């Protein structure tokens, strides 16, 4: 049995932390989302649902939100296409190179997000590395502008940044597959490809789901990559929130969008959690 003091000691600090830094700010934000701004830029505490209506009716917000979802889905797919094969190779075939390659995957996570963002700016810019290379090979004759400041640039940058988040849970789930299951599958007459399809892939799905959730949710809420490489056509929903809280000075609308986003993300997390429960075999 634990003493009362011990119980209080372990429960009160996290409870306090969650209350002060999460619950109270959310509550304040939630209140803001029902207020409005007067033409004289004063926040009026007149409770109403105008902000939420505007969010659903104004085509600009809807369009940006849809674009954000599209970008997040693309990043998720590309990160999966890059991350799964690498995780599979690491887990099953890297042998002695495993530790080294694993570190190479991890190291970029230690570099600042900004540095990686700027790196892509340097690569994709009109006098950047990619354009220079293409012109050197005479594939193009003048800089391709569309590389930078486009949804395309945002997708490339975020795929690069979030692929490790996709790879790591997949790698962990692959590492958890007992190797004798693979041997049993071969033993029972399955080729390597069929073994992958019938044993390895189904058993790694929880990892895929976790990785996809990371990549999708983190991308959906990202505002730095669009800021650095997105340009006007690559704006995402978080950039809208940032500007509403900044230059546009419409905190109530910003709060409403934030809550809409949060609702979307929480719903998504609940769905994946239920899916995962069905996938994981106890």
């Amino acid at each position: 049995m634990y003493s009362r003091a011990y119980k209080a000691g372990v429960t009160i600090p996290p409870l306090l932390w969650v209350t002060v830094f999460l619950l109270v700010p959310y509550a304040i934000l939630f209140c803001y989302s029902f207020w409005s701004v007067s033409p004289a830029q004063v926040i009026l505490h007149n409770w109403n649902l105008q902000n939420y209506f505007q969010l659903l009716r104004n085509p600009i917000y809807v369009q940006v939100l849809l674009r954000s979802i599209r970008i997040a889905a693309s990043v998720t797919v590309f990160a999966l296409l890059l991350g799964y094969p690498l995780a599979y190779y690491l887990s099953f075939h890297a042998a002695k190179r495993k530790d080294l390659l694993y570190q190479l995957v991890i190291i970029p996570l230690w570099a600042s997000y900004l540095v990686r963002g700027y790196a892509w700016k340097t690569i994709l810019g009109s006098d950047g590395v990619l354009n220079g290379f293409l012109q050197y090979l005479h594939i193009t004759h003048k800089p391709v502008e569309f590389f930078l400041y486009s949804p395309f640039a945002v997708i490339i940058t975020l795929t690069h940044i979030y692929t490790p988040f996709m790879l790591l849970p997949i790698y962990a789930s692959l590492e958890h597959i007992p190797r004798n299951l693979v041997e049993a599958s071969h033993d029972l007459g399955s080729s390597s490809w069929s073994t992958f399809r019938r044993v390895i892939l189904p058993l790694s799905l929880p990892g895929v789901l976790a990785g996809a959730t990371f990549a999708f949710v983190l991308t959906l809420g990202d505002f730095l990559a669009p800021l650095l490489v997105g340009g006007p056509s690559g704006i995402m929903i978080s950039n809208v929130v940032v500007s509403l809280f900044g230059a546009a000075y419409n905190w109530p609308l910003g709060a409403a969008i934030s809550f809409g986003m949060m609702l979307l993300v929480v719903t998504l997390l609940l769905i994946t959690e239920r899916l995962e429960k069905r996938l994981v075999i106890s």
Partner: protein
Amino acid sequence: MTKAAPLAAVSGTAATVAAPILSIRQVSKRFGQRPVLHGISLDVASGEFLTILGESGSGKTTLLRLIAGFEDLDSGEIWMGAERLDRIPAHRRQVNTVFQSYALFPHLSVFDNVAYGLRAKNTAQAEIPERVTQALAMVQMGEFAQAAPAKLSGGQQQRVALARALVNRPRVLLLDEPLSALDANLRRQMQVELKSLQREVGITFIFVTHDQEEAMALSDRVALLRAGLLEQVAPPREIYGEPETAYAAQFIGQTNLLRAEVKEGIATAGPIVWRTFGASGKATYSLRPECIRLVTESAGLPFANADVSGGRFRGRVRSQAFGGAMDLLEIDCGGANTIRARIANPGILTGEREFEFAATDAIRVREGEPE
């Protein structure tokens, strides 16, 4: 199903048989710098229950994995009938394995686990349910077809693993210490079932174990493996009754090793003397504890003049453990010589007593590394 092929095909003590289903020829394997198997040759007869017996690290599991195709051999050949097995990938070999930890697919039901091999080989869809049901019935697991493997006990998982392998009708079934994870009672029960199952299906079983009792109870022949070399290959009774080496004698059953000096047909090991036909010089003999009898009409003969057609010796009973039908005695016969004997209903023995054994029960064995 047909009855197992007559085991008359298994002849003598040699590692070769007539028309083997599986022939292992000069197979060597090393892992990095560490040699595991040194040129093993072994034939397996069709329908036979062969046990590969050895301590951990003897290479027995490696030999099994080479046959299954999970490892590549460094040199030598493995043949199945007229087919060179070691050049065929694991998934095309007509061999199935029952794994030590069962290796059931956790995401599939018992039914789908058993159907896995049939589906992999594109068996006609209509045939699958019948064959799976039949295989599950054979191991008394019919009612668990829709269960998840994780919900089953160890013994039940074991049965499913057996059904999953046997449903494919392999030419050879490999079993890698399949009973080692079960508790003692269940294990004995499964041994009996395994043996009768093998007779029923008539499939050749190659069974790997470190448990000599299990090997004796189940096998038609035992291949005793020691440090990557075959020590002796023989039916259990023969390997027990006529061990070729000191190692075999000690590993299979209990024994007394008598290090004797042989001169003109008389062997002398400390105070123990008996007649032998072996060549003169130093020699080691194995004498099973149950071959020793208590001399009841003790005439108090001095051992030097013992009737040497058999062996006689005197010794003080140092300990006596009651064992039901047979008591286990430790007899101190002077110097460093302790002899263990199993004697039926001896009553309580005290002090110095006289014991005897038939000269033919002292089996001359080789010492040292296998050849």
